[in-house]
């Protein structure tokens, strides 16, 4: 395993030298950023968040305007409503107003925290989202936990046994996760664990047993990128002088791995997972459908297919909010996990 220890040591030392040199370069270049007081940073981050929310809202508004199809006609066509009745409904939905008026009204409602009423369901969008949010959050969290754990295990194995068959197997599994669609792996999992073995239910939400299959399926898809990243990180950390020092001091390898190697490697994995939130929601769309779960993803797909604009906008805003929150959390978590960053 440590065939190239000598060489590794050398490169680790040379790494430190360069690292220091580079750090000074960074602090020169980034001095003005670092000198900002914490308050200013918080303020700027908050301002950025508002900007992102506004942009996401505008993006959703614009995208749905460009999408062909008349919402009023979509709602009423199958009922045999006359063209006049469809036109009346269109006016009722406010679709006859000029675009700037619709946009201004939308922003004004948003500012008051009003997400509007779903054209398709006839209920408050805010309430509908609140109903679906817990199930989606539950799935996302469980899948993330599973994906992160599996990814870290695979990445660690691959890094420790680099360039051996273990590496090939672990990397292969990770890429399998990256290249297997959830609608396909989900069905396999249902057939195997639910129908043939009868271990877990295939459908619905509620207790933990219902969560296991969908979370594992979605988590497996997520583990691929985590594993690739952890592998790279661990290889990098293994080259660090403090690992050598710890080895020299006679600390057991297991302890070194846990305390010194894995801990700093987890941070970036967490952030990658945070970045994958959009992916997670996309995956949730399919996962919810395959495992007959409730959730935001299904709500959003239905809304897009039916041109239910208030719901589409609502889900996008919630997605943006979740994205901002997770990236903030990930930043904090990483600092906590990796003391070098403090």
């Amino acid at each position, binding site marked *: 395993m440590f065939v190239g220890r000598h060489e590794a040591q050398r490169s680790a030392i040379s790494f430190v030298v360069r690292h220091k040199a580079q750090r000074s370069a960074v602090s020169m270049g980034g001095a003005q950023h670092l000198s900002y007081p914490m308050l200013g940073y918080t303020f700027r981050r908050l301002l950025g968040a508002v900007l992102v929310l506004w942009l*996401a809202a505008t993006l959703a508004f614009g995208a749905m305007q460009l999408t062909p199809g008349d919402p009023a006609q979509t709602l009423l066509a199958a009922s045999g409503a006359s063209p006049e009745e469809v036109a009346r409904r269109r006016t009722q939905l406010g679709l006859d107003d000029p675009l700037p008026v619709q946009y201004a009204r939308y922003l004004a409602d948003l500012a008051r925290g009003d997400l509007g009423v779903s054209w398709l369901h006839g209920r408050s969008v805010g309430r509908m989202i609140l109903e679906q949010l817990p199930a989606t959050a539950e799935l996302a969290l469980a899948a993330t936990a599973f994906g992160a754990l599996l990814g870290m295990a695979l990445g660690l194995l691959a890094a420790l046994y680099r360039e051996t068959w273990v590496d090939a197997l672990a990397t292969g599994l990770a890429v399998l996760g990256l290249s297997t669609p*959830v609608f396909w792996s989900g069905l396999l999992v249902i057939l195997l664990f639910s129908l043939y073995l009868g271990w877990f239910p295939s459908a619905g939400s509620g207790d933990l047993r219902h969560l296991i299959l969908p979370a594992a399926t979605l988590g497996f898809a997520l583990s691929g990128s985590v594993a690739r990243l952890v592998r790279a990180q661990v290889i990098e950390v293994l080259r660090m002088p403090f690992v050598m020092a710890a080895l020299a001091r006679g600390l057991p390898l297991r302890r070194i791995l846990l305390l010194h190697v894995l801990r700093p490697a987890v941070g970036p994995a967490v952030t990658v997972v945070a970045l994958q939130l959009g992916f997670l*929601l996309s995956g949730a769309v399919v996962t919810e459908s395959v495992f007959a779960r409730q959730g935001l*993803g299904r709500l959003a*797909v239905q809304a897009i297919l039916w041109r239910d604009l208030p719901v589409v906008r609502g889900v*996008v805003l919630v997605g943006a909010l979740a994205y901002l929150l997770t990236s903030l959390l990930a930043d904090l978590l990483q600092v906590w996990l990796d003391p070098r960053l403090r």
Partner: protein
Amino acid sequence: MRKSVERASRCPGRKVLERALCALAIPQLQAISPRRPLRHQPLAFSSLLWLAAIALGAALAPYLAPSGPTATDPSRALLPPGPGRWLGTDFLGRDVLARLLWGARWTLGMGAEALALAVGLGLPLGLAAGGTGGLRDVGLMRLVDAWLAFPGLLLAMAVVAILGPGLSSVAMAVGVAAAAPYARVVRATAREIRAQPYIDAARAVGAGPWRIILRHILPNAAPALVAFATTQLGWVLLNGAALNFLGIGVPPGTPEWGAMLAEGRAYLRDAPWAAISPGVALTLTVLAANILGDRLGEG
């Protein structure tokens, strides 16, 4: 080789997110031993062989395939693999091998088109943001954040609706959705390179921002960006297929592998071969692209 090791440790973005992204873009397989020729790296070599094989299969499909990719024959529906139908037939009696061979064209074409769009949009955006910094950087990145906040698959659905149906629309839709993370990675990498002393030197001798971006940042960032692009190949192919699963997507009957997978899953219990073949082909291709991407990044 050394250079890439340095890069791995030097992802200094102020935000942790950016640092992680930058690290993700750094090639994964940094062997400490000196670089070996490709033929002595069995994984990379077989990856290259596989990609060459499917490219050849795609090119020679008219000669190799036992029949056309859309020729149906209800009397031969769902037959298991056997002589004359090496991978079996699907629910419309079409030869799976023929569809797989022809499908390589659509699949590779779609993947290439989507990736080209992701890179075409993401690269300039990320370079403009990360290569110049300042207000432009902040503004562009908030835009990318908003874009990222739109769940990729939903964005793709909206784009397909806007562009109208068709294989090319699907490719563009997933490409647009993949462009945002790409822009983020480009920006993180560009910022990292911008912090290097030689950039300061270039600036000191009067090089303009765009000259710095094009002459210094882009060439140095290229390997990492290629590596990340290949990891996105899997994403674009899978999400093209997920659109099919959701009932919009590539034209019906297109032998694109993802679409074959989506269609074949309904018959998983009667005719697993109809879905397993495109599934294995898809996985191997994504695997090969990932491994080669890593190796390219190392160079």
